[in-house]
C-alpha cells in the first residue's frame, strides 16, 4: 500500500484510539489539554475544509463564514433547551438551518465577486451581531447557556473529540469529492471566468449556490458541537472577525484550492498559536501575529505550503490528494 493511503489510515487509527489513554491516567497522566487541542484542530479543519469549497475552489473569499457557525450554534442551543435534548442530536438540524440561511445569503451575495463579496461577508457578521445582541428570545447579549454533559471530567471531551473527528473526516472527504468531481471542475471554471463558464453550458448560479450551501451546512454542524463544548452560545464569542480571519489564514497558509492544504494549514497555525500562547499568554497580540502571518504568507507564499510544494514538484505523496 503506497504512502498516500497508508499514512492517512495509520493517522486515522491513532486518532481513533488516542483518547482511550484517558482510561489509564496512571500511565499517561491527564491528557485533557491535548484532547482539547486535538478537537480544536478538528473543529477548525471542518471550518477550513468547508471554507475551501467556496473560497478555495470557487474563489469567493468570505471573511465572515463564522456567521453560519453562529447560526448552527444558536439553533442547536435553543432547541436543546426547548426540547431538553443534547445538542448532539441536533447537529443535522443545525447544519440544515445554517444551510438554508446560507442558501438565501448566497443567492444575494454570490452575484458579485471580489471586493463586494468580501465586504458583504463582513457586513453579514455585523448584521448578525446587531440582531443577536438584541434578540431577547435567544438571550440577547448573554446568549444561551447549556448544561455540561454528564460524563466525568476525564472523559467529558470524548463526544466532542469524536464528533469533530467524524465531521472533519466527512468534510475533508467532501473537499476531496468536490475537487475530483465534475461539480468541482465546473466550480473551478467559474472561479476563473464566469461568463466563459456559462457559455460552456455550466449552470453557474446552481453550482455557486450549491457550493456555498455545502460549506455553510458543515460549518453549521460544527457550530452545534462547539456550542455544546463551550456550553454557551453568545454573540461576542461566535461572531468575532478573528475566527473568520483565522480560517482564511489557515487555508491560505496551507494552500487554497487543495484538499490537504486546509488540513496542513490548520495544524501549522494551531501549533504556531500554541507556541505564541506559551510564550506570551493570551493577549491582544494574538491578532497582531495572525495578521502578520497572513501578510507574510500572502506576500511570499501566496500558494500556501501545499501549493508551493506542488508547484515545485516536491509535494510528498501522502499530501497529494489534489
Amino acid at each position: 500500500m503506497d504512502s498516500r493511503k497508508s499514512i492517512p489510515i495509520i493517522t486515522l487509527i491513532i486518532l481513533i484510539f488516542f483518547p482511550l489513554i484517558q482510561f489509564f491516567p496512571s500511565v499517561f497522566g491527564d491528557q485533557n489539554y491535548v484532547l482539547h487541542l486535538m478537537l480544536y484542530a478538528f473543529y477548525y479543519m471542518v471550518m477550513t475544509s468547508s471554507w475551501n469549497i467556496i473560497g478555495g475552489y470557487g474563489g469567493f473569499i468570505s471573511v465572515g463564514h463564522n456567521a453560519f457557525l453562529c447560526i448552527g450554534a444558536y439553533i442547536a442551543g435553543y432547541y436543546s433547551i426547548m426540547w431538553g435534548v443534547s445538542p448532539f442530536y441536533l447537529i443535522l438540524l443545525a447544519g440544515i438551518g445554517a444551510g438554508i440561511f446560507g442558501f438565501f445569503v448566497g443567492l444575494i451575495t454570490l452575484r458579485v465577486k471580489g471586493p463586494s463579496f468580501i465586504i458583504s461577508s463582513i457586513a453579514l457578521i455585523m448584521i448578525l451581531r446587531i440582531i443577536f445582541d438584541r434578540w431577547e428570545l435567544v438571550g440577547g447579549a448573554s446568549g444561551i447557556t447549556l448544561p455540561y454533559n454528564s460524563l466525568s471530567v476525564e472523559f467529558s471531551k470524548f463526544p466532542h473529540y469524536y464528533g469533530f473527528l467524524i465531521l472533519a473526516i466527512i468534510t475533508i472527504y467532501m473537499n476531496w469529492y468536490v475537487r475530483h468531481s465534475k461539480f468541482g471542475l465546473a466550480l473551478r471554471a467559474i472561479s476563473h471566468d464566469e461568463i466563459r463558464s456559462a457559455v460552456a453550458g455550466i449552470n453557474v448560479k446552481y453550482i455557486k449556490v450549491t457550493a456555498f450551501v455545502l460549506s455553510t451546512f458543515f460549518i453549521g454542524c460544527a457550530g452545534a458541537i462547539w456550542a455544546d463544548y463551550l456550553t454557551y452560545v453568545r454573540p461576542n464569542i461566535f461572531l468575532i472577525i478573528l475566527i473568520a480571519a483565522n480560517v482564511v489564514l489557515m487555508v491560505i497558509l496551507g494552500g487554497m484550492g487543495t484538499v490537504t492544504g486546509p488540513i496542513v494549514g490548520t495544524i501549522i497555525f494551531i501549533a504556531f498559536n500554541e507556541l505564541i500562547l506559551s510564550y506570551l499568554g493570551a493577549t491582544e497580540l494574538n491578532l497582531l501575529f495572525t495578521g502578520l502571518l497572513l501578510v507574510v504568507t500572502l506576500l511570499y507564499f501566496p500558494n500556501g505550503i501545499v501549493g508551493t510544494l506542488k508547484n515545485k514538484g516536491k509535494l510528498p505523496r501522502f499530501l497529494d490528494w489534489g
Partner: protein
Amino acid sequence: MFIIQTIILGLCLGFVYALMATGLTLIFGVMRIVNLAHPIFILVGAFAAYYLFVLYGIDPIIAIPLCAAVTALLGAITYKLVFEKDAGAQTYSEMTVLLTFGTAMVLDGTLSYFFKNTQRITSPPYATDAIFLGELFLPTAQLYSGLISVGLIIALGLFLKFSKLGIAIRATSLSRVNAELVGIDVKFVCLFSFILGCALAGAAGSLVSFVFSFFPAKHWEWIAILMSLVVLGGMGSILGVVISAAILTVIASLVGAFIAPAWSTLVFFVALFLMLLIKPHGMFGKYLE
C-alpha cells in the same frame, strides 16, 4: 422640529463619514486596492488626537494636520512594506484585499496591546457644548466636525480638479495605461495617492475622536459602514461617497431617533445588501478590467 434637528445632525455625521470614506475611495480609484485597513488608520489618527489632547492639551481640530502627518507616515511605511510589490498590478485582486485585511489586524493588535480595549473619547470643551438655534438643539461636536469635514472634502475636490498632480491622479484612476502614455509617473501617483488617502484618514480620525467613543476593535464596524458607503456611491467617486453618506446617515439617524439607537447602523448594511440584490454589477463592475 425634532425631525429637522435629527436631519441636520445626521447630515453633519454623514459628512464626517464621507470624509472617512474619501481616502478609501481615492485609493481604490487610483490603485484598485480595497483598503480594509483604512478604518484602522482612522483609529490611529483618533488615538493620536486623543493623546495629543490629554498629554499636551492640543485641541483635536488644531491637531488635524498633526494626526494627518502621523497616518501619512504610517501609510508610507505600510505602502513600502506591503503594497509596493503589488503596485505594478493593473487590476484588482483578492490577495491584495486580504493583504489589507492582514495589515488591519496587525495594526489592531498593536493598538489593542498598547492601549487596551477601553472606550475613549476626546473631550475638548465643545464636545459637550451645544448651540441653540431657535428650537433646535445642535451639539457643537457634531456641528463642527461636520463643517470641517465638508471643508476638507471641498479642498480635496479643488486639489484634484485644478492642480497638476490632482489631474494626474484623476487620469491614473481613469486609465493607468493611458496616463503612463501621456507622461504621468504612475508609480509616483500611486504612492502619493495612498499616502494622501492615509492622511485623510488621520484627519478624519482627529475629528472622530471627539464625536464617537472609540476603541481599537471599532474599526471592524467602520469597515462595514465605510465600505457600504463606497460601494453605494460608486468606487472611486468622491462625490458619490458624499451623497450616499449624506443620505444613508440621515436615514440611519432618523431610524436611531425614532426606532432605536441600536438599529441605526443596521441601515448601512441593509442598504448594502439591497444594493447587491438590485444592482450588483453597477458598482465594481466597470472598474474590473
